């Protein structure tokens, strides 16, 4: 067992993941059983038993979602504490790029959280309707989620198993830094246009949400996430670190920056998820999701405010931009 697998946080993380996978497997078996025997019209005792079992699947998924949400933060925290063991890694960025499973794993986790949230929104709608209209869609979605989670759990073990503590990894300065003039920003933007686009998209998202043009909202939200990621890494991040050359999405998760990274990325992703799901639900199922949409807008506003505040405070203190 190499040192990585012996690290306390890694053991606790893998244990939690496998317990969740065990529960999900039970839910998977039950869902398959329900899908096979499901016939809403019939009065048979079998049908009522299946309806009761559906509640077990719902409870398991609710619990799995909350724990997976906490485990994502815990995963990043564990990776951060591993950076001492991996030579050359100063923060989580180095450890994640230790082998090629890292980035894929992080991406999978974000996707899974989105679909779990979507499943719970569908489930709430399904329970409120009187005849379980979305039952089959919901169950098939869960089966898809289960397969993705199975892959994710496999990659978890693969990722932690293959982190080599001898061969040095490149740190975030090489991963995200300016590679001798090559412009890392997408669509050939420079910093100024990136910022303009960032605030413009934010206004578009708010406008679309308030005037409830949902397709525009979905498009704007997706683009906003993409642009926000780059603007945080290449512009706002430098103000958090107060160092113009330090571009890294992970270093802000560390202790010396007061774990602000969790707040920044948390509000961005949760806000976008809630926004996307509420608009998808409104378009697809014509059900009013006002509350979720307003929470999403609040979270996105907190995110933008927080980023701008860092720049403003820096400017007020030093009187000059980076």
């Amino acid at each position, binding site marked *: 067992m190499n*040192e990585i697998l*012996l690290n*306390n946080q890694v053991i*606790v993380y893998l*244990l939690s993941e496998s317990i*969740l996978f065990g529960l999900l497997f039970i839910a998977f078996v039950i869902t398959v059983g329900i899908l096979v025997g499901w016939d809403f019209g019939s009065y048979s005792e079998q049908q009522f038993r299946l309806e009761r079992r559906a509640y077990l699947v719902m409870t398991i998924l609710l*619990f799995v979602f909350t724990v997976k949400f906490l485990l994502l933060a815990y995963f990043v925290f564990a990776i951060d*504490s591993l950076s001492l063991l991996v030579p050359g890694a100063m923060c989580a960025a180095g450890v994640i790029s230790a082998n090629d499973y890292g980035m894929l794993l992080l991406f999978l986790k974000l996707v899974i959280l989105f679909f779990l949230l979507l499943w719970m929104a569908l489930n709430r709608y399904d329970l409120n309707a009187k005849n379980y209209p979305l039952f089959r869609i919901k169950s098939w979605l869960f089966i898809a989620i289960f397969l993705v989670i199975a892959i994710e759990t496999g990659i978890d073990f693969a990722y932690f198993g293959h982190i080599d503590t001898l061969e040095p990894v490149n740190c975030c300065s090489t991963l995200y830094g300016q590679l001798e003039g090559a412009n890392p920003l997408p669509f050939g933007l420079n910093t100024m246009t990136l910022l303009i686009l960032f605030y413009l998209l934010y206004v578009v998202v708010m406008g679309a949400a308030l005037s409830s043009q949902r397709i525009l909202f979905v498009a704007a939200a997706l683009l906003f996430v993409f642009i926000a990621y780059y603007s945080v890494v290449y512009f706002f991040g430098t103000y958090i670190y107060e160092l113009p050359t330090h571009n890294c999405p992970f270093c802000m998760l560390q202790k010396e920056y007061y774990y602000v990274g969790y707040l920044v990325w948390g509000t961005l992703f949760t806000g976008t998820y809630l926004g996307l799901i509420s608009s998808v639900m409104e378009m697809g199922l014509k059900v009013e999701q006002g509350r979720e949409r307003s929470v999403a807008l609040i979270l996105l506003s907190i995110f933008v405010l927080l980023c701008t505040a860092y720049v403003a405070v820096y400017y007020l203190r030093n009187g000059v931009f980076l």
Partner: protein
Amino acid sequence: MRNSPFFHFLTLEFFKERKKHIGVIAISLVILFLLSSVLFISSSIRYSLEQTLEQEPDFVVQRTQGGERVSVPIEWTDGLLEIHGISSVTPRVYGRYFFKSKEDSFLVVGVDFMDEQSHKALRTIMDETDLKQFLKGENMLVGEGVSRYLKAHFYPKGYTFLTPKGAFKKVHLFKVLPKESNLIANDMIIVPIELAQEILGMSEEEVSDIAFNVPNDDEWENVEDKISSFHYDLRVVTKNDIKKAYENLYNYKGGIFLILFLITMVTFVLILYQRYSMVYSSERRHIGLLRALGWSINDVLKLKFFETMMVVVMAYVLGVALAYFYVFVLGAPLLREIFLGGVNLHNSITLVPILDFGILSSIFLIYAVPFVSAVLIPVWKIAVTDPKEAML
């Protein structure tokens, strides 16, 4: 919170099943107490060790032959001085002096008291008057473990060392090092450098190894390359190696403990599963009646969920507080031996209270996730009892 009837009913229900909850909390307390005290001790010792690393010299040059460390000729220091960027090169003399029964050993350390840098350090340990008196005769500073050991073996005032050449060196015990430095100085005897060389059987121009600092971090790699090409049997130990050694040492111990701990978690989960699914008919009728009065499965699940959360939070807070009190206030009397080894001289270091987010969240996750997953299915089984149970 106060004016929601659900919360009011929740507290009534919670206290109705007091006996069951108290039983579950008691079991969880045992598990939580054991786990968190082990993690607290290991993180506290690791924190203190990391503190000592600041004083650690950046590089140590040693000479190894046949896997065995041999003493280094003093001339090597001039070779080192020529390299740019190296500062405070200090030859060090230390070695293990085995007590007569070859069971326990002291760490004999020779310090050149004439050197002004160690003179300044000495002044922090003792005041001015003792200093002159100390430098006059054959005196030694002794760690707390050593002084206790010597007292136990009837050498209260001093100790006569037997040098390899057969001469007897009577050394007077001058002062005991402060208790706080037990972490490194528990079995340490500090003597003048010439005396140490004599006791350890080294000639005048031989030292154990040479330590030096390289203030400029970026230079560490090239300094290390330069030095390792000096001699064939030379070996360089950098500060990063030591940091990784400490990390691995406590990962190793903590990790093994956690993996063994999983076995207790499995039994804990089984106990919980059995405890929560042992439903008396009165409990079943109770929930059936609730359902008959208009509570849906969601409401009963919510009630049971909050009950479980209350049990989890209560057990967690009590467990961690108990472990905190045991480790940082009582000093973890028994459990400490796992980490301090208890071998050689008995060591009683003071554990510095250290709580960081990582430990607390690990403890919560390793406790709460198995707990709730064990309780999930029995709670669901109760929640879906058929309302017509109330009619029977």
